[in-house]
């Protein structure tokens, strides 16, 4: 089986290529795939008819109970003939149907073959989930096929409707299958499941779910409307998918489960009401359609309802009739669709009011249509006739098991009424398609903007045999089958035998004067009467036809859905950052607040370790409140900086000089960066559009703060274990080789974290650069030498509008004499500054302190392992030194101070740090493991060297690189962009 499916797949994939070379004849090649299915079915005939099912199994996902198992019993075998045989015929028909110039035939052929494969898989799958896989695949392929004429809006809409409706049902069915699958071990295998036949409320729910799936696929009321809409597809698709194969999937599903569950009350209620209602509604609607395809579509809906009733009722006799009807229907309905397609091609219309003279001109088609219609309406000596007789007989004889006695006769009556309508629309169809009519339109429809004049029979072209032979073959087969009812019965009987209730039915041509025969006669007579009164029927339907149709409801629903979606999204997705942050903090307050309340409050709360702590805390509080209230950006930044320094003071009071040092340095650099950024921003925050919500925001903020305090209190009160750090102090020296616990933790114990954090620094640096430079990584370094000896005095020459100090400085401007370019200056790039920007004192101080600062940084770097310091602090200090040079001498001075690209420092620093770690991995067996060397140096004596020092150097380089990068981009580059070009 898997090989057959693979063949379909291969042909589908190859289809576009094949079409490119052989044109539309390629359809015939594609027909090989479904034909091979028939061949396979023939080859296993003996085995299946002897009562042993053909099985195959391949492992797929055993953990989910999903394996590729196939099992072919009588029902599957019959379905294979239908799927393969009609598939092959329709494909051959396609090569005549599509014009040679049509585009997209390759795509169409590919999807069609893929569909045929999925259908074959569906009817043979033994694993319920695998069956569902194929079930959904047919849905998706049918979506693509319905939308074949994708530039037509009705096609697109019909395709979407079909996939949404059938998938909705499909998903319900999936839940049903899962419930059943989980109810017994191995429940995903049909045979196991049906043998175990679990019973419970959940199983009843599952059965309803299954029926919903079947109803959606087989177009039962109230989900039937997608099928008529799907007539937008090319006619071969309608014929195969929407008559013979796909819509039978629901019937197939019901036929699979009915032998076991046909007696369940909920099952019977659903099957009978849905089936019979569909049977009647479809027939009724078919009576007033003018498009031949729509007549057939509603006819199909109607017949599917009957099929569901027959195979679903649960008696042997009904099931026998049902399967026989299934075969008959596949043949006659496919034939009718193919005939319609041919008529459409040769006459150019499918409107039964306009068609005229087709039968006289193309008798072969008229015969095909006529025979198929005969089978459909159940004229004697056709397959349709024997099946319908058996159906009426079944209900006349067995009724509905377990139900009240009036149910059987009621069903019988409904079947007769429905059959009458079938006969009526059947005759109307044949008459409409083939009869020769007078040119006056049937005069019912008032809106005359349609062209309803009959076509001229002379314009009808002769169809190629490709168009007429396949329907004729199917129609004749349908009649011939009726001639051999005994043989027919022996084919389908094994499936009916699986049902446990009722007596065995029979397929016969003549069973004497029975209720069934009387019913048939009544139906045919009434049907003919309805046909004669067709204009009255149409007019009647138009008059009472309400707006409330399922299709209309569906569209209303979908529009409503779109509206609701838009409304809900507009509500949750405001695009407002304050709102999002507010929601997050509110969630925080509620969730964490509940947890805090549930926690035990510490018995005794110590407010401070030393009263001195109050001062920095007070400073922090005041600074933060003022910062939030400030309207001037610079003020806010400075106040936040105050807060930061106060935190450093707290660290000092806690006895953590390392942390304090780092905090101070970080705060300083941050301030510098922010001030550099603020140059490009308006001095004041924007007006407050959020004024109205400020109280709620304030409330959230205060609540969040309170919860945070609560967290801190309860958390420290909850500790019952010793912290891991209590063991660390000794190990730091013994194992880490240093006395500075902070530094050893940073570069050794938790060096991995540090490694991560310096990569964050690196990214931050590149990120700033990317925003400022946008296209290039950096500008080239511009050094004083590049200026070619000319003293350009333009750095910072322009005043920004916001610079309030400018007025003051301008007064002093006159006093500054133009500098002599030859005279040595304190700073090398001093001359590049605009004269009014220079400050002699600053230049001198910078000249004096720069090198000592760098030296100090080097000291910190080397001594960090044992004393306060380390690579991070050292890097920041170098950074501050560079900042001073920049502020004193402008961007040329910066380039003179450290003439390398920041990217190089950042990159090398990261490589060095990580490389040290890797060296540890290679030599010591663990990433970042450090080695300690002792050696004697002439002056320093015994020197202890720890490999993690190299790691620290890497950190140092990255930090220097970061500061340099910030100065380059936020400083120098912004200066440059702001300068007036001379």
């Amino acid at each position, binding site marked *: 089986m898997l090989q057959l499916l693979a063949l379909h797949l291969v042909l589908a994939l190859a289809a*576009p290529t094949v079409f490119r070379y052989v044109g539309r004849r390629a359809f015939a090649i594609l027909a090989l795939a479904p034909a091979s299915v028939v061949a396979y079915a023939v080859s296993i005939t003996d085995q299946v008819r002897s009562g042993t099912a053909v099985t195959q199994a391949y492992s797929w*996902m055993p*953990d*989910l109970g999903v394996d590729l198992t196939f099992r072919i019993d009588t029902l599957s075998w019959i379905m294979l003939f239908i799927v393969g045989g009609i598939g092959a015929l329709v494909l051959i028909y396609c090569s005549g149907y599509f014009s040679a110039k049509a585009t997209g035939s390759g795509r169409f052929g590919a999807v069609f073959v893929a569909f045929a494969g999925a259908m074959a898989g569906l009817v043979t799958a033994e694993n319920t989930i695998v069956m*569902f896989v194929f079930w959904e695949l047919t849905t998706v392929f049918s*979506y693509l096929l319905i939308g074949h004429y*994708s*530039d037509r809006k009705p096609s697109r809409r019909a395709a*979407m409707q079909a996939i*949404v409706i059938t*998938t*909705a049902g499909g*998903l319900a069915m*999936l*839940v049903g299958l*899962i419930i059943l699958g*989980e109810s017994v071990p191995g429940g995903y295998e049909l045979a196991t499941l049906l043998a175990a036949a679990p019973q419970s409320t*959940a199983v009843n729910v599952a059965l309803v779910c299954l029926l919903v799936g079947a109803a959606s696929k087989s177009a039962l009321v109230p989900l039937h409307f997608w099928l008529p809409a799907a007539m937008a597809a090319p006619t071969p698709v309608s014929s195969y998918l929407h008559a013979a194969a796909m819509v039978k999937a629901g019937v197939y599903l019901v036929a699979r489960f009915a032998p076991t569950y046909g007696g369940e009350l909920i099952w019977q209620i659903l099957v009978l009401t849905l089936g019979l209602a569909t049977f009647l509604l479809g027939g009724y609607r078919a009576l007033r359609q003018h498009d031949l395809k729509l007549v057939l579509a509603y006819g199909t809906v109607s017949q599917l309802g009957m099929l569901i009733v027959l195979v679903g009722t649960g008696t042997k006799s009904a099931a026998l009739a049902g399967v026989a009807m299934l075969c008959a229907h596949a043949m006659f309905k496919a034939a009718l669709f193919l005939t319609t397609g041919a008529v459409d091609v040769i006459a150019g219309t499918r409107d039964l009011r306009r068609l005229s003279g087709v039968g006289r001109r193309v008798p072969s088609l008229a015969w095909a249509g006529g025979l198929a219609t005969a089978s459909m309406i159940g004229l004697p000596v056709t397959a349709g006739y024997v099946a319908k007789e058996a159906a009426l007989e079944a209900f006349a004889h067995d009724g509905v098991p377990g139900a009240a006695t009036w149910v059987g006769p009621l069903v019988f009556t409904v079947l007769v009424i429905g059959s009458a309508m079938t006969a009526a629309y059947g005759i109307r169809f044949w008459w409409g398609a083939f009869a020769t009519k007078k040119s006056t339109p049937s005069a019912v429809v008032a809106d005359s903007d349609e062209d309803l004049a009959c076509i001229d029979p002379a314009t009808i072209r002769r169809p190629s045999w490709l168009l007429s032979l396949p329907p004729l073959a199917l129609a004749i087969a349908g009649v011939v089958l009726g001639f051999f009812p005994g043989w027919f019965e022996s084919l389908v009987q094994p499936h009916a035998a699986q049902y446990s209730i009722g007596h065995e039915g029979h397929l016969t041509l003549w069973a004497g004067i029975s209720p069934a025969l009387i019913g048939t006669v009544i139906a045919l007579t009434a049907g003919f009467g309805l046909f004669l009164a067709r204009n009255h029927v149409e007019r009647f339907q138009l008059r009472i036809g309400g707006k409330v149709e399922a299709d209309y409801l569906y569209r209303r629903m979908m529009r409503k859905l*779109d509206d609701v979606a838009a409304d809900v*999204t507009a509500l*949750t*997705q*405001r695009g407002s950052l304050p709102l*999002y942050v507010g929601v*997050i903090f509110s*969630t925080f307050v509620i*969730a964490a607040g509940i947890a*805090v*309340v*549930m926690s*035990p409050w510490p018995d005794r709360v110590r407010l401070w370790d030393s009263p001195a702590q109050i001062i920095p805390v007070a400073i922090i509080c005041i600074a933060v409140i003022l910062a939030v209230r400030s309207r001037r950006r610079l003020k806010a930044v400075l106040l936040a900086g105050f807060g930061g320094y106060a935190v450093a003071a707290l660290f000092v009071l806690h006895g953590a000089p390392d942390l304090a040092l780092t905090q101070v340095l970080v705060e300083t650099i941050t301030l510098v960066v922010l001030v550099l950024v603020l140059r490009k921003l308006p001095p004041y925050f924007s007006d407050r559009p959020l004024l109205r919500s400020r109280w709620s925001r304030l409330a959230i903020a205060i609540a969040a703060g309170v919860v945070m305090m609560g*967290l*801190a209190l309860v*958390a*420290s009160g909850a*500790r019952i*274990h*010793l*912290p*891991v750090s209590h*063991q660390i102090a000794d*190990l730091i020296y013994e194992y880490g080789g240093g006395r500075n616990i902070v530094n050893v933790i940073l570069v050794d114990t*938790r060096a*991995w974290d540090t490694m*991560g954090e310096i*990569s*964050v620094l*690196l990214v931050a640096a590149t*990120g700033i650069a*990317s925003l400022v430079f946008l*296209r290039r*990584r950096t500008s080239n370094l511009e050094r004083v030498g590049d200026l070619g000896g000319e003293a350009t005095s333009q750095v910072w020459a322009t005043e920004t509008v916001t610079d309030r100090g400018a007025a003051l400085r301008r007064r002093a401007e006159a006093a500054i004499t133009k500098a002599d370019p030859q005279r040595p200056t304190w700073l090398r790039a001093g001359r590049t500054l605009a004269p009014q920007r220079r400050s002699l004192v600053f230049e001198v101080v910078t000249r004096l302190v720069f090198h000592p600062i760098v030296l100090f940084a080097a000291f910190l770097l080397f001594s960090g392992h044992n004393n306060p310091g380390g690579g991070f602090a050292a890097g920041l200090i170098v950074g501050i030194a560079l900042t001073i040079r920049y502020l004193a001498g402008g961007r040329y001075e910066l380039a003179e101070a450290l003439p390398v690209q920041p990217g190089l420092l*950042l*990159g*090398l620093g990261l*490589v060095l740090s*990580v490389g040290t*770690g890797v060296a540890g991995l290679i030599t010591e067996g*663990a990433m970042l*493991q450090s080695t300690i060397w002792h050696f004697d140096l002439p002056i320093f004596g015994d020197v202890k060297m720890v490999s993690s020092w190299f790691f620290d150097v890497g950190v140092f380089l990255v930090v220097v690189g970061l500061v340099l990068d910030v100065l380059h981009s936020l400083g120098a580059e912004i200066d440059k962009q702001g300068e007036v070009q001379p």
Partner: protein
Amino acid sequence: MNIDAAYLVPLPVVIPLVTAGLTLALWRVPKLQRLFAVAALALMVVVGATLLVAADSGALVMHLGGWDAPLGISLVVDRLSALMLTVSAFVLLCVLLYSLGQDIADGAAEAPVTIYYPTYLILAAGVSNAFIAGDLFNLYVGFEILLAASYVLLTLGGTGERIRAGAIYVVVALVSSVIFLTGLAVTYAATGTINLAHLAQRLPEIDPGVSLAIQVLLLLAFGIKAAIFPLSAWLPDSYPTAPAPVTAVFAGLLTKVGVYAIMRTQTLLFTETRLDNLLMILALATMILGILGAVAQSDIKRLLSFTLVSHIGYMVFGIALSTRTGMAGAVFYIIHHIMVQTTLFLVVGLIERRGGTTNLDRLGGLAKASPGLAILFFIPAMSLAGIPPLSGFLGKLGLLQAGVQFDEPLTWVLVAGAIVTSLLTLYAVVKAWNKAFWQAPTIELPQERLPRTMVFPTGMMLVAVLGLTFVAGPVYGYATRAADELMDPSVYITNVLGGTS
């Protein structure tokens, strides 16, 4: 424990970091940058695959710097981590090739190449670090690395739109970091340790209220990253503006890191108080509200961002079930979702190129104009909508099975919610297909052929998406074994802390 394979444990972070440093230092030589970047990610895939095999016979642990847990940092690669590492490395490689292809096609005019590669590699390092961290603070560092890199990538090019979106993204991410950091502080204050295995031992012993506080803080922090309702609104506002490959990798990986973190902490640390019902309700809200958002969109990038949010709900559902099957379903769904969302966003990049826009009302006719593109979109879109036999269906199947097995009223509601979400996802993507690929184009399509250098990596992703169906058996088996490991935290604890302590 396999000593040899344990050596590989730090490599998924080390390789990209070293390469990032090199590529940054080599800013003058874009050719070498590209070569190194591709080689590094290819190597990560190899390392990931090796770890995948090795971790199947027991978790791999490395104590960094030789400091034994709980003092130093432990890196742990168990099955879940290995799986995540491998999948993310592969996805990162494909996306890198795609953006490389874009560079080649555009003559490197679009992105500032020189910083793109180092930043991208650091993002890779951050993602990997989050997956192998055996230490809560290190997990935080992993988050920081990937977030910092993502800030840069999101604002590449610095257009007004990207800066605005970036502002939302950065601020929300910072808030989540602050909450995470608070959680860390509370954790250490309450337990005196931050090693995950050690925490797993200590948390059940401390006061349940405080433990709950820690759990809530971590869930909040991770929930923001994973975009769980009501913390999800930032995502559809920020992701769609970035360049296509960046959105692709964000959509594929970043939210999943959050989901991974939830999965890890929920199974390892909070085995007794799971907050499962709460998580289920949130999962339901995430699914439904997310997918309604998708239905309402007319821009395909935004539409996909909403499906991204919505389907996070599936994974949370699996986690909240806290059964073996639920966890396995969630693991499988994560893998599926990483691949499929990434592929779709890459395809959207191609759509934008071919159709000139991502607005569905203006797109059209792509199925005829570019059948290859149609296939590239259709298959992952169907997979996203959970159409069998594609991976989206298989993951959903596992989750539904787990939900049905659980058999509680709330899980039945979740099962129904999952079904509705699945249907609406289908509706949304079919609507997108109908418009972008079928309707007549409203504007003249550019006559440009899609560059092969971009189509090829997308094709690689598509093959992987399809391949997931064929190897679903072994993959699902692996996911189930990963779930077994997750459901039995004692194994993790013993692996990290040794038999004693």
